[in-house]
């Protein structure tokens, strides 16, 4: 979780200093989900992500330097600069394609799950957001997954307004009139669960169990992970309110901004988890600090790698239209 946090902060700082161009999306505040899910997966499994893919890729074992290089559009990036952040995929780690279209990856995940079922191994995980339920592709992919009874796990990271903060009569989102998201896949005869995106332990336990159920042939599952959006993601371009996250904020310190302080207290899986670990005696604050130093160094190294890597030569634009026969 810490590595993801520091990677994303690097992205924001590099973008703000104009080291790379183009819109991008960060996974701050949702780290526990990627980590919990990917910890339960093996090399024969598939992961499908969206434009908000950095956390999923890192959790799946992708190298931060090659990811950063891809975000910069450099030749050393995983896709040689062809995907950038939006479509970043790592075939050799079981992330074969990433769609930047809302709802674009759901049918892909159903199809990969079909292939897994046919060969008798592997599960297919689809990370998507709440907005995907507004797309027809969601229904088609879920209906197929259910009818074909394939090993697909749909992880819906719902970062829309939480129930407690909604106005009277306001729906889950301004664009879906269901009382709760999980009602929708349930009506398609798919088993659903709702988990708290801020509770790393609950997530780990839930996904360990769910991946197992799916792997053993229990058919598809839909999990709504309720996250509260990190305040830095509300502006059109991500910002670091009060700078990078500080370990001290989990203990004796807090940030200046009240909305951020509240979010950390109630919704940040990282803050809540480190506090829990330390108070349980599982790790000391100085061990934490050492871990953090390593993470920061690693991600600073990734930034340097990206900055120093060359761009692809123009002739590369014509390559990879076709897979070689």
């Amino acid at each position: 979780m810490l590595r993801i946090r520091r990677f994303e902060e690097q992205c924001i700082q590099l973008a703000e200093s104009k080291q790379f161009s183009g819109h991008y999306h960060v996974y701050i505040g949702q780290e526990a989900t990627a980590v919990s899910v990917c910890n339960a997966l093996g090399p024969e499994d598939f992961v499908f992500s969206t434009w908000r893919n950095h956390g999923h890729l890192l959790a799946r074992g992708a190298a931060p330097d090659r990811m950063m290089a891809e975000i910069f559009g450099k030749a050393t990036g995983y896709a040689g600069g062809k995907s950038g952040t939006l479509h970043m995929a790592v075939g050799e780690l079981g992330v074969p394609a990433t769609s930047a279209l809302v709802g674009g990856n759901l049918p892909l995940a159903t199809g990969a799950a079909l292939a897994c079922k046919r060969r008798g191994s592997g599960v297919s995980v689809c990370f998507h957001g709440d907005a995907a339920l507004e797309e027809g592709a969601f229904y088609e992919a879920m209906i197929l997954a259910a009818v074909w009874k394939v090993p697909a796990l749909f992880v819906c990271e719902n970062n829309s307004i939480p129930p407690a903060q909604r106005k009277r009569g306001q729906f889950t989102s301004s664009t879906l009139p269901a009382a709760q998201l999980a009602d929708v896949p349930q009506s398609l005869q798919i088993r659903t669960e709702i988990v708290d995106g801020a509770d790393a332990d609950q997530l780990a336990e839930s996904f360990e169990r769910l991946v197992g159920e799916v792997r053993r042939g229990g058919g598809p599952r839909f999990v709504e992970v309720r996250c509260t959006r990190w305040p830095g993601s509300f502006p059109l371009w991500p910002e670091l309110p009060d700078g990078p996250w500080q370990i001290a904020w989990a203990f004796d310190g807090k940030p200046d901004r009240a909305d951020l302080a509240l979010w950390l207290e109630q919704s940040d899986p990282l803050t809540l988890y480190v506090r829990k670990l330390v108070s349980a005696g599982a790790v000391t604050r100085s061990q934490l600090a050492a871990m953090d130093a390593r993470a920061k160094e690693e991600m600073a190294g990734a930034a340097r790698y990206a900055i120093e890597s060359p761009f692809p030569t123009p002739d590369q634009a014509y390559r990879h239209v076709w897979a070689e026969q």
Partner: protein
Amino acid sequence: MSAIATELKNETLVGFYEQLWRIRLFEEQVQRLAARGEVPGFPHLSTGQEAVAVGVCALLNEDDYLFSGHRAHGHVLAKGSDPYAVFAEIIGRQDGVCRGRGGSMHLVDVAHGVLGATGVVAGNVSIAAGAAWAAQVRGESRLAVVFFGDGATGAGVFHETLNLASLWRLPLLLVCENNGMAEFTGREEHSNVAKVSAFAAPYGIPTQTIDGNDVLAVYEAAREAIESIRGSGGPWLLECMTYRMAGHYVGDAQHYRSKEELAAMKEKDPIDRLRRDLVKRGIPENALAAVAARVKAELDTVVDRARRAPHPDPRTVLEDVYSAWN
């Protein structure tokens, strides 16, 4: 006998009976001509599903919008379109509702509120929502009805439409003719969800699942839905369980159905059901037979006239690609 039957006057019920026969005999004529090679393409017949069209359309005003799919003949006739113009369209004549350009699967009759039938499964569901929305924005009291089959509920756009209709509280009546078949595939083979009304539940859309072969049950449910739509607003979904007596399209030998199945479906024939109800009410059999005979004669004339009607002039083929630009 149902409560609704006691409310309605004899002449209303006999009117339903006549309308059911009109659709049934119309479709028989289409089938007859298709077997002789006089109908281009592959028409899809409403035989056996007439009660849904009649029961729902009896409650619609002329200016309510109607949308349908590839199996639209019954809906269009029930809405009030002229059988001659519809038949002429099906056999590609100049006098057809679309001047021969659309055919069986693309019937449009704006004067009677029939804004479109489409040949693409689920193609009209979101369009109907749009028409309903336009009526709402303009503050009109009209509603839009869209007829579709259970096969259409596999399409993503169907679910997108449920979402929009509920969110915007559209004056939209969704009528699903659940005949258990999507082309040649039975529902249980391609879906885990037996009843289509289950899809509407998460969006809070009121639904009813009813016997679509009982015209009075259809009428009663449609009345509740339409009163609600016109009154407090918001969409409704009616699921009418019915049976497709004539195959997916003309020429479909229905090898995928057993003899027993085909025999059992005759039991459910909506025309026979209403006839039994009417006889119980004391309407003489011979009066009912006279209704059927009159409709038959009417349609014989219609078909004869349509067959003698001119084809469109090929030189007009390039017209009407675009609405006039100025």
